[in-house]
């Protein structure tokens, strides 16, 4: 391998100074701006989780008061859902890599892209200030009438923060959709697109159609709490369950916003590190769209025990089973991609394997919960908590890390220590399972969620879980260290350190400000690993 030098002119060094970052219209710089704040949000959310797990090491509620505990799990949920999981892959990796993947110079609306970031920061600042000045204790789900009539914490300010942040998500979705429709390079037909682009497209659909509904729901909550309007008030004959319908109409599709882009990343990484085209490309592409559409019609599975009609519950239960099918299609296709491929064991692939195992468990346990009879027993227990953490952390965050490890050389032009990356992947996998697998058992045994004290017979599993959380935290700390180190001391990556297909790997690392020196023209199918010799340059 020849030693490569860093390129002379890149998007990182062609302009200097804080203004060139804060007023940038370059999608690559905006992606990095998101990375900074999402990382901060992850740290804060992790801190709240640490508070929760510390309390749960002992059965008695002796570390925090119950009020404080309520605030801790609420704020953990809010930080992680709105400021980490929703933006992580789309706003960071998607922003960076989408125009490169389709051969465009930038997204369709670069100024709006920057505004999206500012909206995100303002929303995060607003929400965090609500947390700092008294906190919020309604659960991230803000159910009425507690949130409108009884809670005496900063519900309004948090609601405003969430409302603002929603627009960041919407505008990113608008930007990506228009970019994908109108800015593909010549020859880049829909079915030559990398699957990450399909995933981002499907995600954008969900962001655009779903986020406004939570915006209006939070708006109604604010009207009821702030002005005393009666829309959900039972004393007037209002229905608190209506709030739940409207809330989950967004919040269920939101989980598909969180998982679709990481799934797209998995497709990219699996193809590259199996040296094989993704098996059943069109099935995987259409399954992304199917997940987006189906994801909109299953929301009331969160309301199974809230008092909705059993007939409606049956419909939603059936649909919830159906939505698992496209995800299963993807899982089969990924496995088939690896079969008879030449597996190249690098860090991104480690995270992919972590994803496969954990997403499988998370997805299957979702089917348990989709089953009406089981959900009556499992609702509001730790089984649910374990299920969604397997999907969110085991699935989405693992996928995000796979993408980060895959694209880091492209983003920074530097290689990181692969050994350190593998160690982090293993540590995270072990820590994760130790944290969350006991929670399946706890839930099955009946331990309720959102309780700060529990019967002593549950202590063993809780201690295992808290111990696992410590290991997990260490695992997440490692990338901060070796990625930072790589920025200063990492070996230059060159255009294509992984020998991957895709337009993004044909340009220099880090890329030019305008991405491509000349307009690329696409003549090959996606993931053409078999047809030509891939040069690891």
């Amino acid at each position, binding site marked *: 391998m020849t030693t490569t030098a860093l390129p002379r002119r890149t998007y990182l060094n062609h302009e200097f100074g804080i203004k060139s970052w804060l007023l940038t219209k370059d999608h690559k710089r905006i992606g990095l701006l998101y990375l900074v704040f999402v990382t901060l949000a992850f740290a804060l959310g992790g801190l709240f989780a640490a508070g929760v797990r510390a309390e749960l090491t002992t059965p008695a509620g002796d570390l925090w008061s119950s009020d404080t505990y309520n605030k801790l799990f609420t704020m953990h949920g809010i930080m992680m859902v709105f400021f980490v999981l929703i933006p992580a892959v789309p706003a960071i990796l998607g922003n960076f890599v989408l125009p490169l993947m389709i051969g465009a110079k930038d997204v369709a609306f670069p100024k709006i892209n920057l505004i999206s970031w500012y909206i995100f920061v303002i929303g995060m600042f607003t929400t965090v200030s609500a947390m700092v000045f008294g906190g919020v204790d309604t659960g991230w789900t803000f159910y009425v009438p507690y949130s409108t009539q009884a809670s005496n914490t900063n519900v309004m300010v948090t609601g405003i923060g969430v409302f603002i942040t929603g627009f960041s998500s919407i505008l990113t979705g608008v930007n990506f959709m228009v970019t994908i429709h109108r800015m593909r390079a010549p020859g880049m037909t829909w079915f030559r697109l990398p699957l990450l682009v399909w995933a981002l497209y499907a995600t954008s659909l969900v962001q655009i159609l779903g986020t406004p*509904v939570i915006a209006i729901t939070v708006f109604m909550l604010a009207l009821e709490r702030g002005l005393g309007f009666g829309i959900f008030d039972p004393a007037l*004959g209002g229905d608190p*369950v209506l709030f739940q319908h409207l809330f989950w109409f967004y919040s269920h599709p939101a989980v598909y916003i969180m998982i679709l882009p990481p799934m797209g990343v998995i497709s990219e990484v699996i193809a590259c590190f199996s040296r094989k085209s993704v098996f059943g490309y069109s099935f995987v592409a259409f399954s992304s769209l199917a997940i987006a559409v189906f994801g909109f019609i299953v929301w*009331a599975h969160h309301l199974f025990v809230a008092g909705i*009609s059993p007939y*409606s519950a049956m419909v*939603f239960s059936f649909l919830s089973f159906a939505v698992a099918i496209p995800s299963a299609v993807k899982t089969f296709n990924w496995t088939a991609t690896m079969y008879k491929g030449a597996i190249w064991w690098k860090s991104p692939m480690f995270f992919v394997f972590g994803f496969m195992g954990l997403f499988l468990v998370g997805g299957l346990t979702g089917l348990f919960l989709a089953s009406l009879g089981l959900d009556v027993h499992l609702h509001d227990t730790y089984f649910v908590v374990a299920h969604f953490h397997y999907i969110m952390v085991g699935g989405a965050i693992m996928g995000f890390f796979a993408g980060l490890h895959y694209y880091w050389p492209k983003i920074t032009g530097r290689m990181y220590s692969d050994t350190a990356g593998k160690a982090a992947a293993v540590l995270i996998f072990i820590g994760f399972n130790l944290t969350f697998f006991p929670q399946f058992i706890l839930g099955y045994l009946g331990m309720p969620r959102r309780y700060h004290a529990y019967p002593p017979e549950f202590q063993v599993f809780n201690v295992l879980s808290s111990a696992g959380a410590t290991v997990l935290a260490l695992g997440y700390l490692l990338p901060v260290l070796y990625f930072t180190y790589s920025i200063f001391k990492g070996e230059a990556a060159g255009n294509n350190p992984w020998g991957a297909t895709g337009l993004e790997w044909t340009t220099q690392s880090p890329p030019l400000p305008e991405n491509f020196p000349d307009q690329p023209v696409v003549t090959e199918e996606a993931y053409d690993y078999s047809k030509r010799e891939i040069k690891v340059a």
Partner: protein
Amino acid sequence: MSHISPKSTYYAIFGALMALTALTVYVAFQHLGWLNFPVAITIALIKASLVVLFFMHVKYSSKLTKLLVASTFFFLASLFGLTMTDYMSRGWFTSPRGTTTAGMLPKLQAAELPVASEQALANPGPLFEATCGSCHSFTTKTAPTLAEINQLYGAKHDIESMVTWAKAPQRKRMRFEPMPSFAHLGDARLHALANYMLQQAAQTPPQ
């Protein structure tokens, strides 16, 4: 670049919109029963379509734009439609035990319960907690509180009215779920319970 509509088109559409507005007001005052609402919505949809097609130029826009506009209805429809599957079917079939907590009580005949023992009648506390207390306490919000019941019946110690009500409750307060009948408990128990409730209310200082 884009299609330029003649001014006459815009004026014609405006005229149509004015006419449809007048029509919708006129129809609103006609006795069409349940049809009033669908007719009003249909007229509104026609007006909206005219604005979309001609003022917003969708008639002359790309296929993609047309597809997007049409697909909005699909998603709005799923929000409305699937939410309504819950609300429209809530009262459809009530199992013999009903779906509300009160309705879960077995519908026993008075003869099916054994005669109340003297001891049970003298000490109706546990029966009260099991049967009435979840709805009628001092702090419950699902039914009149004990304090309110005391206000209604306590002044004249009107046990008879309370028993009559418990056997055949009317519904005077729309914000509460209907109270089921407790006739199956039998007169003896009902008297004891009524006495107990007034006693409890009298003993407890006002909250």
